[in-house]
């Protein structure tokens, strides 16, 4: 069996070496790159989309002035969105919930999971601040009823309440809930929900395009050897390895 496998493997290698792969030289490839038409306007839009989606409201405003690119969303809504995000990042969850409801009450109404995660974050902040009694009361009154509706909420709730059982939370197996990354996770969830409610994509297009570039290069590798860009941050062509 293993001998057969080796033979099959070798055959495959021979086949690959036999030159079924097309080789494209740097010169040929550069000609192809030159023929590609990229419009400045489209790049500007891509940059604007990034600034807007990531919430760089000042930069977006400046970019509008400097490049004449119109943002694909009302810039004032970014400020509101960023205020909510910031509130969660700083642990002011109550404040964040109020702000989201001011913005659009439907966001939390139609998004029970997001609402639960915000409430959970509120509980985490109470525990972090050592407000044990308040935390227990909040868990029982606000979170437990929701847990009854949904099994995964219940498990999340149990994990969170377990934080109370440990005097030194560093020893608690669920200690990561107190980590800053949990706040960021919740914050980006709210951020995405607000963007979706504004019929805007929740992620900027640029990272998707970069991923697509890496994917497209991998796909093309199967059929051809050509100059690749291996390091996105310097965008330099590297000669094909034949």
């Amino acid at each position, binding site marked *: 069996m293993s001998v057969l496998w080796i033979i099959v493997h070798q055959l495959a290698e021979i086949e690959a070496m036999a030159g079924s792969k097309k080789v494209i030289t740097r010169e040929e490839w550069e000609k192809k790159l030159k023929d590609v038409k990229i419009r400045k306007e489209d790049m500007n*839009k891509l940059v604007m989309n990034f600034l807007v989606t990531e919430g760089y409201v000042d930069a977006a405003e400046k970019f509008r002035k400097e490049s004449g690119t119109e943002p694909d969303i009302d810039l004032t809504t970014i400020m509101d969105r960023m205020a909510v995000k910031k509130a969660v990042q700083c642990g002011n969850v109550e404040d964040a919930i109020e702000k989201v409801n001011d913005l659009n009450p439907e966001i939390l109404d139609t998004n029970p999971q997001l609402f639960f995660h915000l409430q959970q974050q509120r509980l985490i902040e109470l525990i972090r601040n050592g407000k044990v009694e308040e935390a227990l009361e909040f868990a029982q009154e606000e979170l437990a009823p929701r847990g009854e509706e949904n099994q995964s909420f219940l498990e999340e709730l149990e994990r969170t309440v377990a934080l109370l059982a440990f005097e030194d939370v560093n020893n608690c197996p669920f200690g990561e809930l107190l980590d800053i990354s949990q706040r960021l996770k919740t914050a980006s969830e709210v951020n995405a929900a607000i963007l979706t409610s504004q019929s805007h994509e929740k992620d900027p297009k640029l990272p998707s395009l970069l991923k697509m570039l890496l994917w497209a290069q991998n796909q093309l590798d199967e059929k051809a050897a050509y100059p690749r860009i291996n390091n996105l941050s*310097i965008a330099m062509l590297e000669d094909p390895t034949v």
Partner: protein
Amino acid sequence: MSTANSNNSTNHHHGDRDLSLWFLEQSRLASARGLTDEDEDSPTELNTINSSGGFIVVSPDKLSAKYTSVNLHGHDVGVVQANKPAPVKRLVYYFEIYVKDAGTKGQISIGFTSESFKMRRQPGWEANSCGYHGDDGLLYRGHGKGEAFGPTYTSGDIVGGGINYDSQEFFFTKNGAVVGTVPKDIKGPLFPTIAVHSQNEEVNVNFGQQPFAFDLKEFEAQERMKQQMSIEKISLPTNVSHQIVRSYLLHYGYEDTLNSFDMASKSTVPPVHIAQENGFDEQDILFALNERKALRQLIRNGEIDSALGKLREWYPQIVQDDKSATCFLLHCQKFIELVRVGALEEAVKYGRMELAKFFGLPLFEDLVQDCVALLAYERPRESSVGYLLEESQREVVADTVNAMILSTNPNLKDSLHGGLHSYLERLLRQLTACCLERRFLSGDQGEVFHLQRVLNSSKKARC
């Protein structure tokens, strides 16, 4: 990405002219707007000319076929191809048949055949053809021996045949469900083909004029999703998008935006650290940032005289040749700005003084003509040369000047490419070239990649 324009070998001017000529090209590009999407013909009916006449009768609407004789041997199959080959500039092509009557033997088949297919044989029996047969449920690919594939089909069944160009596979369906797929190893145009081969066998063909039994939209959506999932799984280096946006702002001298962006990046939680690692070096694009920003602002405000003045003061080498492409673009822009504010007499005077000398020079001629044509219209903005009055034209001029200044950087490591393209542009070029090349190596089949479409769609990017 060579900056050197190939038709410049006859050009006696110094190298930096090549760079601004490239921008001249760009300004032409800007005038040709929108996607030119070539529509492809699709099959609409059966081809009654090239069918195995004598054995079958095709209905007057050319959408059904019936076997009217008694079959005697393997060479009297009633085969009909569609009137057009399956279109290829898409993710999937698909058509269906409805078996109205399975006749005496039910020897019906559906498949794809090449143009040179020998009529009177079942699709799949001959080279360069593929067919799913009703009487045995076997799949035939290029010879008389079938392979196990799916269920048999008979009267009342709806059977479909499709080509998935992305995976390069044929697939077949029965009553709305996929039966199976096989690799598509046939090159060139493929015609949807049906065959009947026993008395009274009759099938109706649906090239999409009726709703399909099979949910094609859903199938396509799932195929796209599969690809999207594998793209999303790829991980990017931390903050690489930030880095690319930042280098873009630097490259084009959008300094105010850059400062705001940097400020905000520092105060986010967690702060974004734009690392100088990975060989990322912004020295090249930091060059003369203030000057580039100032000139961009002047040009964007339409203050061309001031821009020219500053250029003469700061970078005389760029504007010393008054017949260079950079000067040409600036003079044109000055002319355009005069037209914009309605100072037509002054525009005429300026044109005679500064633009006339460019008449008859093949590289400049069409832009000069477009500029002058602005004078002919009462409302030039709505005319065919109205693009000149748009912001994008100012941007082209500003980008040219920006690139020219970058190219004067004595420390420029990559003098060929440094000034011309931002990192973002290089990446987008590479992306487009990869997608186009991949499609080319798949026999020019599948959806054509359009960056603009990806950017404008609210849906996810797709190659």
